[in-house]
């Protein structure tokens, strides 16, 4: 039994392709049932997000399954398989297990560590459960993926730092003020990024928002959105001593705030620190002000720098996460192997037992005049032969599940002794 994946993601396909292959979340029953109906597939799940479309299936014949899944993807969406093929990847066995664990832990995401993907996979699993296309192995596997994702989140700092510019501003402010409670924000101008940053600030505890704009009505409109106060542009500087955080993005050709004014304001504020973000180009705030002790002034590039630094930090954490995943892949692999070992050993013994019985019966019926005691002796001798012969192979099979080539031995034994496919014996497991 193998986990097989066919799919595409932001790494292999542009958005024009991805949108064509996506499955609408409201109509998952049909594709899931069609996928499960394919001859070499015994369990199926479809993950479809804006960044990836992946089919997870359980199959006994991996290569056949891959071909069927590719055809299914193309046919279902009415696409040319030749064109689609170049964007598709397929994975099986260890690589497939590893892939799913990495995806669930957000290591394969466009923005590493982003939290949405786990929820999306949970939803996909929900559909597979609802339409009964997930069986024993996928159930266990997906639950494993969720717990690994949780472990990665808890044991590494992969998602702890901001990776958007507007949130980076909040994070930076926290390194100055610690808590943003009871702080006052002033928005100068009405840039989209400022607005977004202001939203983040309000969500993180900022209690008072002042808005100023050359066009007073626009200031009023924006102020309303934040439950704040509009300030006349001509005298907004009079309010500055009450302001802890300034977000500026006007279209003004000159500085809206000069260093001299800010120096005065520092004094009025008894040198309490002030955090200013200048998103405007050309800039609104004299960069020289940044040299003042109590002024912490940043422009767009600086915030971009925070984002870059955080992404780098996430990269480091991702390396830790990969180790966790490696460990978990091995664990799941060995569970998967034991899943098949037991039925194989049982089938092997059954077959030997059948041969033994048939031969014993034949021999004993042709030998008359044996005492009960002698009959018993012959029988127990035949049992002993079988036990002795099977002792070592059984041991090897059990051991092999711990290694990578476990399924190799299982396949060999099944082929050599023409054992029946253990699929029908699934109910014996667990």
């Amino acid at each position: 039994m193998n986990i097989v994946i066919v799919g595409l993601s932001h790494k292999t396909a542009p958005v024009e392709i991805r949108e064509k292959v996506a499955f609408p979340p409201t109509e998952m029953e049909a594709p899931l049932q069609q996928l499960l109906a394919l001859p070499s597939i015994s369990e199926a799940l479809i993950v479809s997000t804006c960044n990836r479309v992946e089919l997870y299936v359980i199959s006994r014949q991996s290569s056949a399954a891959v071909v069927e899944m590719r055809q299914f993807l193309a046919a279902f969406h009415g696409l040319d398989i030749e064109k689609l093929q170049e964007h598709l990847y397929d994975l099986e066995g260890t690589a497939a297990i590893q892939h799913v664990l990495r995806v669930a832990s957000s290591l394969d995401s466009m923005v590493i560590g982003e939290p949405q993907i786990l929820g999306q996979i949970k939803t996909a699993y929900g559909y597979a459960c609802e339409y009964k296309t997930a069986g024993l192995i996928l159930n266990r596997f997906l639950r494993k993926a969720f717990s690994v994702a949780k472990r990665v989140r808890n044991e590494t700092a992969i998602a702890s730092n901001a990776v958007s510019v507007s949130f980076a501003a909040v994070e930076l402010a926290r390194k100055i003020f610690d808590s943003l409670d009871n702080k006052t924000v002033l928005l100068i101008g009405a840039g989209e990024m400022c607005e977004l940053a202001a939203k983040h600030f309000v969500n993180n505890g900022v209690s008072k928002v002042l808005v100023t704009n050359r066009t007073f009505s626009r200031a009023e409109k924006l102020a309303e959105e934040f439950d704040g106060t509009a300030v006349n542009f001509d005298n907004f500087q009079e309010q500055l001593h009450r302001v802890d955080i300034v977000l500026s993005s006007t279209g003004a050709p000159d500085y809206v705030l000069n260093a001299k004014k800010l120096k005065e304001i520092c004094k009025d504020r008894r040198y309490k620190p002030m955090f200013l973000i200048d998103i405007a180009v050309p800039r609104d705030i004299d960069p020289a002000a940044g040299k003042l002790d109590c002024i912490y002034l940043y422009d767009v590039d600086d915030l971009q720098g925070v984002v870059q630094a955080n992404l780098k930090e996430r990269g480091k954490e991702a390396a830790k996460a990969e180790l966790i995943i490696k460990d978990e892949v091995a664990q799941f692999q060995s569970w998967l192997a034991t899943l098949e070992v037991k039925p194989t050993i049982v089938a092997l013994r059954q077959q030997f037992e059948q041969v033994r019985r048939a031969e014993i019966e034949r021999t004993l019926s042709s030998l008359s005049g044996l005492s009960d005691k002698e009959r018993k002796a012959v029988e127990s001798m035949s049992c002993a032969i079988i036990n002795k012969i099977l002792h070592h192979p059984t041991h090897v099979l059990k051991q092999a599940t711990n290694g990578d080539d476990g399924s190799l031995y299982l396949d060999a034994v099944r082929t050599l002794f023409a054992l029946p496919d253990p699929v029908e014996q699934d109910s014996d497991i667990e």
Partner: protein
Amino acid sequence: MGTMSLLFSLTTLIYLVASILYIVAMVTKKQSASRIGRWVLLVGVIFHATCFGVRHSTVGGTPVTSLHESLAFFAWCLILLFLLLDLRFRLSVMGAFAAPLAFLLMVASVLSPNVVVQLNPVLQSWLFPVHITFAFLGNAAFALSFGAGVMYLIQNRMLKSKSFTGIYQVLPSLDVLDKVNYTCLSVGFPLMTLGIISGAFWANTAWGTYWSWDPKETWALLTWILYAALLHGRLTIGWRGRKAAIFSIVAFMFLLFTYLGVNLLLDGYHTFEAFALL
């Protein structure tokens, strides 16, 4: 002596374990590690107190008369004060400074000759333990204020130079560091004042004069004036942040000289030899 040196080594080891826990807590931002660190330090401070008690009964007097004993006592005061302040204020980040400093003080104590100096009978007084306790608790508070000041300057530098990696991620916010710096200053100043006053009374019982411009007294007064100026600047002029951090670092340098430099380099009542000879 066997029990005592065992307790001493154990205490040193406990401070090391706590240091590691607090540093891990700071780097990984896991509060659980600093909570464990706090309990470990509590155990350490109790062990250390026991060690101190054993030495007290062996020596037959307050055992803070040699450099060896004094450094260890400093470490104990530092941890005790840190734990007390941590109960009241948000101070756990300072554990990553206090615990390693206590560990280093213990190591320095081990490296300095372990001698027992019998206090001159003239100096035997209940004011001796009172004096040193106030003085060392004050020192401990100022050491913490110094640590917060250094951290502030580093973090401020990171913020101003816009380098947002490494230590920037690890250090707490400027606001927290400035508050810790101020809290320790406002706790340390009255302690130091009481230390100086009790010292004066002690001097009076021993030699019949409250103040004799002994080098230790002179330097202590100078340090006291510096800290008074800093406290004043903070309360009335609105000194804070970088300026206050630098000031507290400079003042601590004076304090270090008052504590160690005077005893080791200058002559006077306070040299460790003088305790016995005088």
